């Protein structure tokens, strides 16, 4: 077997090891490479900036243990952004696990707030917790909140929460911020809230889902999108709120570079073998 053939038949475990090293190294020794802010992130940031102070936004928190390290830092940044602007937030999650991570993001954002910025539970924000039923649940929530949820995440009856006093359907919200993680749920928000109620919406998802939602941005149904850890890093950068996402984005860059080299080398070796007439 020729050397090229041996290289092409490289044990996948060696590739895994190389990838592990390339991903772990930047975490242990942070490297900051130049990074341009993507259009989708800039659009989403500008949309968030345009939300008027004093208004109320609906916020879907769809991160799980797997996706929180990627889009969680961006979610924390957006909650922080809204509170510092004086925007009130009604949170909910369409997954049982997600509601825990949403509350974690709220707590993290509140812990970072500068002195003087208020974020009181029930007044500046409320977490409605888990709303089951997927898209049907979102549709029901948009039309009649009290028909799907009676108590918030902490068990407080909705009717006793000051922020919810005049809110019972999607018309009360000036914007929808949909942090869907890898749920694939952004179309639920578009179909059940943004389009029927005419409420502007921006989103966030994991990197692999970004291509799926590009058509919604082109059509203006989504005002912007933060994709994966890079989207989170860009939010932190635009907000000037240093966080963990930037370092992680650099690790993704290095891993991606190694992957690219492997793909190119694999194809070059394969072409050489074909030109030599070897199979």
């Amino acid at each position, binding site marked *: 077997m020729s050397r090229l053939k041996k290289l092409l038949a490289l044990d996948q475990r060696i590739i895994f090891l190389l990838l592990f090293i390339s991903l*772990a190294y930047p975490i242990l020794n942070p490297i900051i490479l130049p990074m341009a802010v993507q259009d989708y992130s800039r659009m989403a940031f500008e949309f968030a900036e345009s939300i008027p102070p004093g208004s109320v936004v609906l916020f879907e928190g769809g991160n799980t243990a797997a*996706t929180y390290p990627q889009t969680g830092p961006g979610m924390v940044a957006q909650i922080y952004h809204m509170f510092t602007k004086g925007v009130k937030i009604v949170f909910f999650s369409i997954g049982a696990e997600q509601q825990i991570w949403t509350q974690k993001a709220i707590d993290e954002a509140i812990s970072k707030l500068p002195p003087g910025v208020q974020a009181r539970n029930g007044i500046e924000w409320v977490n409605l917790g888990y709303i089951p039923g997927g898209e049907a649940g979102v549709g029901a929530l948009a039309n009649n909140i009290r028909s799907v949820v009676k108590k918030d995440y902490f068990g407080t009856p909705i009717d006793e929460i000051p922020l919810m006093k005049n809110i019972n359907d999607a018309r009360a919200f000036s914007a929808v911020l949909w942090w869907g993680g890898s749920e694939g749920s952004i179309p639920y928000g*578009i179909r059940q809230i943004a389009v029927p109620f005419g409420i502007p919406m921006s989103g966030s998802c994991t990197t692999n889902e970004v291509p799926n939602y590009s058509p919604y941005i082109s059509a*203006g149904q989504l005002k912007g999108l933060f994709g994966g850890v890079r989207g989170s890093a860009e939010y932190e950068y635009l907000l000037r709120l240093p966080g963990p996402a930037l370092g992680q984005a650099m690790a993704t860059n290095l891993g991606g570079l190694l992957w690219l080299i492997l793909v190119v080398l694999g194809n070059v070796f394969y072409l050489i073998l074909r030109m030599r007439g070897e199979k």
Partner: protein
Amino acid sequence: MIDPDYLGLIVGSLVSIAAYTTLIGDNPISKATENLYLGILAGYLFATNWDYIYRNAVTKVQGGEALYIIPLILSLMLLSRLKSGWMWLSRYPIVLSIGVGMGLAMRTTVMADFVQQIQATLLRWNSLENIVMILGTATSAAYFLFTTRPTGPYRYVNRVGRVFLLIAFGVTYGQTVSFRFELVIGRLVDMLRPDVIWYTAGFLIIITLILAIGYKTKRIEWYSAK
């Protein structure tokens, strides 16, 4: 008393290493981790969903709102799948939930996923971006005309459509690879924290030793990629 968050990080480090051993090949450690994860997740989901049903249906029935007995009965009918002779009963709640979901989605799908998407493609031919968008959309859609053979001028439309589709698949592949990296990085960030890294190193050594002994004594079968 140890901080529960810190304990979670340590346990998370151990479980992550155990789960990643599946990259070497199937082994008892990775299998045990998978089973542990599924068990915990199933238990948690059961408890959370029961809590929701209890708060939103059971308490209402107890409070005299008799109509809420219907969703409770439908929920119980779902459990009939556990016995093969009664399985047909579970089809009714499934049909109902699919029907409601479809109906709700279709209500606005025409506007959100058809009309507004088509409108977004009706662009002026005044920039390269717009031209690429129009050509890409039209030729990619034309590629799926399976009722016509790709002959004559349509052959070129078909080929251009295929190129656009391949580029789109390439982008999706690249984004998927990046997503997988981010999943690993998310775990590594916690595992390599200065206050956790020594536990991670310790767990790594212990698991490596167990696997090495297992492979050496042939109690665990070595997976060959070839």
